[in-house]
């Protein structure tokens, strides 16, 4: 896509581009380049000089059981967050779409948590499940279940997944509802006349027609789970217990800022760069081609 009508001159457009180019160069390309560069070195403990190790940091990382564990944790965490938030959102969107009137009211009521920062969501969920004062954990105790996410790895994972999915439900709900309302009612009507029940209609018509939306949300939610949930993890578990909730982004932070292991942290950044790059490519390639009818 190109404009046919353009203005003349080259100095003005360069000046117009300059602010963005400068900001991007200083705060994006230079740091990203630094991350790649630093990933090839191991600094000495005093930070005075560093030793070139080539791909040594990467080799070490890939053989490091903690890093591999963080990879697995991230995968489990992202899948759980994506499935939970997409599932809940699709359920609510299908219900709201069945209403002739009032879906707007529910939309307004469900939109709120989108505005709540992941870190604040973390504090809210921590409060509900706090081992000392939490309301939910107290009632679970009455029921005979001893909740303790500080010690229990599975419960810690469950809690960060719940807190991370919670705010995402609104976002996914908006997209699913928009997608559902874009499906021509005549198609569904025709199936209904042929005698297809609700579930059959959903499975054979609605869900396939919704697949571009679903696929798009899948990618976006995985990106969210990978990067934006840092606040949830940091507020609720700080990666514990026994690193059970240490996802990759958290490990970059923990190794780089807490552990001061700059070479390793930079190498981890580079690996994450590659992951985001891949996800971006997938999003652009596949959304445009595969899932279209």
């Amino acid at each position, binding site marked *: 896509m190109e*404009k046919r*009508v*353009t203005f003349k*001159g*080259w100095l003005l457009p*360069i000046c117009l581009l300059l*602010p*963005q*180019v400068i*900001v991007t160069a200083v*705060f*994006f*390309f*230079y*740091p990203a380049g*630094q*991350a790649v560069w630093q990933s090839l070195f191991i600094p000495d403990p005093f930070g005075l000089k560093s030793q070139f190790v080539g791909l040594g940091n990467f080799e070490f990382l890939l053989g490091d059981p903690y890093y591999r564990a963080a990879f697995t944790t991230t995968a489990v965490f992202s899948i759980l967050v994506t499935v939970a938030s997409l599932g*809940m959102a699709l*359920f*609510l969107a299908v*219900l709201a779409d*069945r209403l*002739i009137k009032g879906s707007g009211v*529910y939309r307004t*009521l*469900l*939109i709120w*948590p*989108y*505005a*709540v*920062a992941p*870190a*604040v969501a973390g*504090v*809210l*969920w921590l409060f*509900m499940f706090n081992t*000392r*004062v*939490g*309301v939910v954990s*107290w009632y679970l105790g009455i029921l005979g279940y001893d909740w303790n996410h500080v010690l229990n790895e599975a419960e810690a994972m469950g809690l960060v997944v719940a807190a991370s999915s*919670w705010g995402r439900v609104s976002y996914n709900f*908006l997209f699913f509802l928009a997608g559902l309302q874009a499906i021509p*009612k005549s198609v569904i*009507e025709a199936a209904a006349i042929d005698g297809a029940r*609700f579930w059959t209609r959903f499975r054979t018509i609605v869900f396939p027609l919704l697949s571009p939306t679903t696929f798009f949300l899948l990618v976006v939610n995985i990106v969210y789970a990978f990067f*934006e949930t840092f*606040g949830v993890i*940091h*507020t609720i578990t700080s990666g514990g217990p026994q690193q059970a909730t240490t996802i990759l*982004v958290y490990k*970059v*932070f923990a190794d780089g*800022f807490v552990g001061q292991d700059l070479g390793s942290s930079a190498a981890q*950044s580079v690996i*994450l*760069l590659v992951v*985001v790059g891949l996800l971006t490519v997938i999003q652009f390639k596949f959304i445009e081609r595969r899932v279209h009818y």
Partner: protein
Amino acid sequence: MAGREQHGMVQKRGVGHWFTHLGLIIGVLIIFFPIWLAFVASTVTQPEIVHPPMPLWPGDQFFNNYRDALVSGVNAPVAKMLLNSFVMAMGIALGKILISLLSAFAIVYFRFPGRKVFFWLIFLTLMLPVEVRIVPTYEVVAGFGMLNSYSGLIFPLIASATATFLFRQFFMTVPDELAEAARVDGARPMRFFWDILLPMSRTNIAALFVILFIYGWNQYLWPLLITTDPSMNTIVMGIKQMFPSGDDIADWPVIMATSILAMLPPIIVVISMQKLFIRGLVDSEK
């Protein structure tokens, strides 16, 4: 929506209709419960919370708790943290909109040497979150002496191309006749930009503003790294700092009042600009 009324036979009537409402109401309650609980906790006394179970209905300490939070807080007055968040969110939203409008205008309406290179340099930054380059970015910001400053909070988060991408797409849909007419009239490019392009982009700018304001307000990791001085904390990252280290009991009413204050501005923005927000969201992501 007369069309939908006519197709009413697909919509369930009677019992099914009420189940639909019931399902949605349960969903809304589940979504709301954490916020409700935080609000209740922000209106009761500390002893009511530390001797569980806490009440599920608001108490009478609303003014005390919010005053305590706003005026003194735990490490820094929450009023100051609100101000910091506001400056950061506005800076990111307005800064990003400004530089993106200019660069999108340059890319769409001019042909100049190196245009393709600039284009790709800018678009490489799409989607790459600050989280993956935190250590080197921190070093850059520290090198400029921008730790504990508003510019340090704002600039690194402006460095991305999502907004540029959006304005570019919008400018492509603006009819060529308008630029043609402006050129025939001898209008300078910037005149065309101010008098025609900018007014036409109003809704897009507003929609993007909503998204970017929330994005900026809700930042956590970046403020956590570069604001070591409590008086420069943003409210979203400051909440966690209010928890005592060790075994002391947290000041829950004040912390929960702060949480409510932290989510209020973005919620107000989302609810009051719902139409624009949904439009901006769908446009910017699709």
